[in-house]
């Protein structure tokens, strides 16, 4: 009799723990979502009144009501275009080599491990590397060029890893049929593998560039934290960028500058969200076309 009771109580206790555990896990999930909502709501409330065309079209200023993000926005556009120019061919090329050309050797494993680890190196370390390499050794100073080269180093491992993932998803039968028709390796890659993996590569590229757009630490390390009252016009010009401008405004004690920072963040987030939307769109639209 008592053993029957035992089973009954443990069963009930089990049910209660089960319920408790489920609700704790659910609570954790809801907390994550709520945090996101609260954080973004906070930024919108703080920044929305300061967002105007003047804000986008004015140069930075000591006076909060006159300050704008023109030079920062253009600096960011310069940086991101140059970074894309450098990092996309390099990254996709490296991925192609590793996936399509490299023999499955220890050497390939070493490069692979190295790239995985490079992706985890803090971006400020790349900033120090840029400072030592581009700013000092190559004498590029705190120019747009050295900023973009530094950002290239930051995003390169991410682009390589994403492109490899995309290339790996192309089935081997495609390559074999191309070879069977007498295609060379490069023809196989260029006419068959690359077009098939392009949506995946594009998604990876856009996501890593949006990460580069938000980076401030490596740029500050290469010395981009100056007052820049002009739009950069050539590679050797000094520059500022949106995240740096946000950093400067946030680190000021006055309240108005915090509102300016919030408005700047809104601009940055709008750009980032639209980039992500483009990435999702590309994946959906062109991902469907290819069917094996």
């Amino acid at each position, binding site marked *: 009799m008592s053993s029957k009771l035992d089973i009954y109580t443990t069963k009930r206790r089990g049910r209660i723990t089960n319920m408790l555990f489920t609700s704790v896990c659910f609570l954790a999930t809801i*907390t994550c979502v709520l945090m996101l909502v609260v954080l973004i709501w906070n930024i919108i409330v703080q920044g929305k009144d300061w967002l105007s065309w003047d804000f986008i079209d004015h140069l930075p200023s000591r006076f909060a009501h006159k300050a704008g993000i023109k030079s920062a926005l253009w600096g960011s556009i310069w940086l991101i275009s140059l970074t894309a120019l450098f990092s996309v061919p390099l990254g996709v090329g490296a991925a192609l080599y590793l996936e399509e050309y490299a023999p499955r050797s220890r050497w390939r494993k070493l490069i692979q491990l*190295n790239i*995985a680890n490079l992706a*985890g*190196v*803090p971006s400020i370390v790349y900033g120090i590397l840029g400072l030592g390499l581009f700013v000092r050794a190559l004498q590029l100073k705190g120019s747009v060029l050295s900023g973009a080269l530094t950002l290239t*180093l930051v995003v390169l491992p991410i682009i390589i890893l994403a492109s490899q993932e995309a290339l790996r998803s192309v089935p081997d039968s495609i390559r074999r049929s191309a070879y069977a028709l007498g295609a060379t390796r490069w023809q196989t890659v260029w006419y068959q593998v690359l077009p098939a993996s392009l949506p995946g590569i594009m998604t990876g590229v856009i996501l890593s560039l949006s990460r580069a757009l*938000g980076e401030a630490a490596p740029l500050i390390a290469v010395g981009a934290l100056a007052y820049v009252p002009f739009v950069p016009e050539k590679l050797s010009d000094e520059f500022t960028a949106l*995240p740096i401008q946000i950093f400067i405004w*946030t680190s000021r004690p006055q309240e108005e500058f915090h509102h300016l920072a919030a408005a700047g963040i809104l601009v940055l987030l709008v750009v980032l969200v639209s980039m992500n939307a483009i990435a999702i769109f590309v994946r959906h639209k062109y991902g469907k076309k290819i069917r094996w």
Partner: protein
Amino acid sequence: MVDGSNPEQSLKMEGSEAAVLQLSHSSSLEKPGGLWYSLRPFYEGCIHFTLFVCASISILVTVGIVVVLLYESVQFFYDVSIIEFLTGTRWSPLLKPQHFGILPLLCGTMLVAAGSAVVAVPIGLGTAIYLSEYASPRFRDIVKPMLEILAGIPSVVYGYLAIVFVSPIIRYIFPSAGVFNAASACIVVGIMILPMIISLSEDILQSVPLSLRAAAFALGANKFEVTVRVILPAALSGIIASFLLAISRAIGETMAVTLAAGATPKLTLNPLESIQTMTAYIVQVSQGDTPTGTVEYRTIFAVGLSLFITTMIMNVIAQYILSRVGENYE
């Protein structure tokens, strides 16, 4: 690019049927000739070499990091003894009298890393378990993209939120806290690394084979018992690896801690005080006009080297664990 009479041209066409049609045509089965054809091995070799160079750049970057950091650090250690650097309890390279003990920076970094782990690990693990084991596919499809947004927010934005939003709340609860305090840095960095923990841990949980769950249910276990006694232990090593990666990210995190934690290198475990991390120190020096070639200037390379080594070790361990996940089911 391709000479007209060659069978390669057919590959341009989309779809294999067109290619087959072209090939069966008699003219393309003739022995190919022409300049293009004889140059083909050379051309292919060039491409092979170019791509090889692209891949080698990753090795060069690593070599570059190590060389630059070591070169400047070695010069730094001519002026400052390595023992003082590793054991000194005061860090004030920019003020007279100068002290070069990295322990306060290390302590600040570890305080932020531990604090953010305290915030992120329970919430992250709970969310990962919920999404992987309990949530309906539809719920997961809504929540996962939202968490991706959280992951895509730049770190300077978290710094802003720490100062404008989190720090006032902390000061309201603990009036003794300063405007710049480690606690607000811990909280925002914790939120920052959350998506990483969730997505990695969820992948690991999903990779536990269904047969294990089915077997446990067949033995009469309920959902809680299956999750906690079967799935979690099976996924434990991978989950720990995801924690390691996230904590390594927290150690290297820069903008949020620079803004939130202040610039006071201090040996303290009190999260309400202002501290300084290794990354924040590098930013502080980069902001100023420290002349190149001086000891003060070289400190950032020495600190950068310490940071690089710390995160590298954690990443290598995590990668090693992750590469072995899944082996134990085979």
